[in-house]
């Protein structure tokens, strides 16, 4: 049973990807994508019921992974040569040499560790990747059709596109289930390659440029990963996660292995696009929306934080841990500030993603049972809400031809359904009683002993509220009038609706999620539980969050409010105050100006580019982030 499920989530997508590549025509492709989605969703749901286990694989796979490693790096070197990018070429060659050294000189092939080590953290990740990833894949069916019609392509590029999308899902599942870090590295490299190809999918100059940037940044991370593996093998004589986590208390108490741990964490930073590497993720927006949704919400970037959260028990209470918390808090603040200065919807989403990933990293660095709980909950809730928001923005862009939030003013009249779904996504990102806020509450309470960290979290939270609230308000900024019902293909409508429902329902089920998935995982690696579930919420010594009472009171309040809004009589609608003679200017509210000319009232947001602009702030953020990384390195080498 278990081997079947692992096969279905990891290996099957590899075959399905090849099929999707060979399939010609839309119908078979649709069939393959939907079938793969169904299998992945079912298999991951069944896995959730299994609980932790380990699973061996035949030695042939060991050999396949080794060969695959070199093949992948060979492909990356090839791309590096074709792009004439020295950095990619030399770093990849270095990785080949390092891997050869590791595989043929260091590794102890006699010691057999199980191939797959599955605990609740892995299961949570598999569920997120398989369920949300599949939904994004289904959404891509409808989206790519419109996308390619818009581009007027001679020959469809969809086979290649879906090949990589499905491959991506399999690789990500492999990454989170693997026990050996060298296996994890193999899947890690596949995601690097997939993202490179997918970002460059449209083949425009900017797409090529951004794809190359993503490649070299991830290759830097990959090189750190290999070096970390070599040092880990030398220091601990094993690359098995299970073996390492079993002796976690000794490792963390003795402050051992901090250098390889630092290198692996650094690799996690690059994958999670933390400063100074944020530009590859913000550049990834040039790809079609499903790619951004997949990269930003459920897969690629989550791999980075997964690795850091996974290794967290190994550096509890060390200097490294404190600095990881500081680094995470700083990036959380800096990226939230960058998002404030943006009017490009996708960029706001990208910066908000990096900001939330940084929060997860900060939680891993705080490294108490409560903060690890917060980290896992953040991973879950962020994936749902962010996937929803990305797909909404994609649909909006296809309809109104812009991703600028200034152009989304009054969207509720053009796309009433999508506007409401977007608002749900935004509200679940920033307001209680939803899961994101529950996790943020845990994060701030567990950080309360570290002033610098908590001050940055406080500032970052306030900035987050600012850019979300602004956007939500603009969506409904329209004079009164019935909206036109909108047309959407079912493959787009269904995933959006499911995700919007899930973002609310999962928040309701937060205590249940915690009891079933998070608490057992925390119990495996930490002495005390983070929280107790009681009185309709979560509580520990430092605080109590009443989930159900809040849902009840606010839910009733919201329903009453909705009814109040619904009972508004169209006869009681006033025109907005204009401090003068009001008149309608091409459907926009306005007033009669000088010389009796009509003037449209056109408000705009303050983005304060001189404070929050990418250019200015990005430079400072990168310098500060590099300084923190240097501090980390200095500390571990000391």
């Amino acid at each position, binding site marked *: 049973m278990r081997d079947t499920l692992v096969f279905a989530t990891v290996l099957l997508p590899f075959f399905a990807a090849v099929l999707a590549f060979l399939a010609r025509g839309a119908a078979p492709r649709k069939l393959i994508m939907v079938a793969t989605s169904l299998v992945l969703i079912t298999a991951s749901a069944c896995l959730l019921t299994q609980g932790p286990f380990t699973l061996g694989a035949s030695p042939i796979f060991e050999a396949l992974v080794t060969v695959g490693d070199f093949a992948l790096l060979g492909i990356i070197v090839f791309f590096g040569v074709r792009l004439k990018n020295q950095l990619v070429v030399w770093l990849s060659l270095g990785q080949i040499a390092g891997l050869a050294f590791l595989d043929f000189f260091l590794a102890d092939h006699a010691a057999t560790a199980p191939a797959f080590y599955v605990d609740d953290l892995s299961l949570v990740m598999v569920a997120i990747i398989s369920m949300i990833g599949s939904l994004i894949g289904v959404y891509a069916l409808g989206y790519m059709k419109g996308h390619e019609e818009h581009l007027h392509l001679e020959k469809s590029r969809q086979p290649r596109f879906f090949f990589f999308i499905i491959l991506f899902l399999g690789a990500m599942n492999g990454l989170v289930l693997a026990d050996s870090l060298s296996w994890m590295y193999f899947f890690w490299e596949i995601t690097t390659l997939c993202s490179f190809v997918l970002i460059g999918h449209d083949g425009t100059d900017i797409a090529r440029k951004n794809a190359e940037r993503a490649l070299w940044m991830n290759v830097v991370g990959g090189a750190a990963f290999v070096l970390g593996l070599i040092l880990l093998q030398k220091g601990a004589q094993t690359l098995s996660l299970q073996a390492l986590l079993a002796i976690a208390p000794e490792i963390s108490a003795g402050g051992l292995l901090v250098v390889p741990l630092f290198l692996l964490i650094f690799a996690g930073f690059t994958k999670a696009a933390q400063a100074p590497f944020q530009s590859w993720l913000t550049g990834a927006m040039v790809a079609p929306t499903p790619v951004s949704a997949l990269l930003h919400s459920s897969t690629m970037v989550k791999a980075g934080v997964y690795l850091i959260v996974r290794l967290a028990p190994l550096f509890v209470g060390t200097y490294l841990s404190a600095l990881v918390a500081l680094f995470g808090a700083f990036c959380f603040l800096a990226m939230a500030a960058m998002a404030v200065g943006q009017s490009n919807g996708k960029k706001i989403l990208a910066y908000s993603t990096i900001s939330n990933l940084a929060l997860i990293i900060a939680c891993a660095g705080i490294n108490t049972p409560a903060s690890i709980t917060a980290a896992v909950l953040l991973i879950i809730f962020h994936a749902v809400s962010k996937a929803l928001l990305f797909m909404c923005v994609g649909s909006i862009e296809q309809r109104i031809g812009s991703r600028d939030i200034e152009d989304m003013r009054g969207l509720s009249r053009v796309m009433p359904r999508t506007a409401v779904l977007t608002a749900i996504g935004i509200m679940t990102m920033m307001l209680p009683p939803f899961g994101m806020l529950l996790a943020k509450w845990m994060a701030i309470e567990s950080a*309360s002993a570290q002033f610098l960290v908590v*001050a940055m979290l406080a500032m970052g*939270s306030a900035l987050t509220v600012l850019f979300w609230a602004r956007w939500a*308000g603009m969506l409904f900024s329209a004079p009164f009038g019935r909206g036109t019902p909108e047309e959407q293909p079912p493959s787009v409508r269904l995933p959006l609706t499911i995700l919007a429902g899930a973002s609310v329902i999962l928040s309701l089920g937060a205590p249940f999620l915690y009891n079933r998935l998070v608490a057992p995982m925390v119990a495996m690696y930490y002495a005390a539980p983070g929280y107790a579930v009681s009185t309709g919420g979560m509580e520990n010594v430092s605080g*109590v969050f009443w989930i159900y009472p809040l849902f009840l009171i606010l839910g009733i*309040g919201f329903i009453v*409010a909705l009814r*109040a809004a619904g009972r508004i009589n169209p006869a009681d609608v006033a025109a907005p*105050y204009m401090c003068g003679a009001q008149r309608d200017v091409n459907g926009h509210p306005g007033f009669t100006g000088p010389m009796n000319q009509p003037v449209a009232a056109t408000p705009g947001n*303050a983005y304060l580019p001189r404070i929050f602009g990418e250019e200015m702030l990005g430079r400072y953020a990168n310098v500060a982030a590099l300084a923190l990384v240097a501090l980390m390195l200095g500390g571990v080498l000391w």
Partner: protein
Amino acid sequence: MVGKLVLALLAVALTPLVGGLLAGVDRRLTAWLQSRYGPPVLQPFYDVLKLLGKTKMVVNPWQALSASVYLAAAVTSVFIFFMQGDLLLIFFVLTIGAVFLVVGALSAPSPYSQIGGQRELWQMLAYEPLLILVFVSMAMVTGSFRITAILEHPTPLLYDLPLMFIVLGYVLTIKLRKSPFDISASQHAHQEIVRGVLTEYSGPHLALLEIAHWFEVVLVLGICSLFFATSALGVVVLLAATYFLEILIDNVMARMTWRWMLRSVLTVGLVLSLVNILWLYVA
């Protein structure tokens, strides 16, 4: 538990009365400072009752939703306070109200409410981090964010956190919409952005916002009272002094710009917090 619940519900029921009276006293004191006679103390109630009797006019139906949610959030936060719940949770619930107020204002395509909404957001950016830091500092002293734990603390928090009380004073000034921070919605409708964030709310919806505002004022004063929770007399003296100082500041200050507010409030607030918390570690 049941006793607590009944008390909390009673307190929530009394809150609008206390809040309205406070607003009336506030107006009388302000009048006295300006050598005017001023309205009767019950004037805020008359105003709200009159507004409630009017026709519900809106520019956009979302405003009706926003006004009600704003009130719901304010009531909920006061309820959590009297249930002696979690300070940080109260803060998050307050945020709901503030966000919906802004969303409602932004949903009306009027330049005044749009600019007011933007300014309200900058105001939130100024006070939110400070309020979180005030709560964090209280948790540092008492070891918990729960109000129950804070009430059990043997000495007044004011002795440990004098500077944090000043930071809370900043938050209170912004929340009360007093000068120099009455930037997003001024008391007087003859300012450059009319009534800013409140411009497009009218009639019963404006009444809901007014009542919600009373709730919020009572809540922030309640948080101030936690700084001297060991004696009832201490609470009364502290709150009276604080509120009178607020009115005084309101009357001797001009309205300032939001850029000045962001810069000065955040700098002063963060520095005061840092100094106070360092002092906690040292002392």
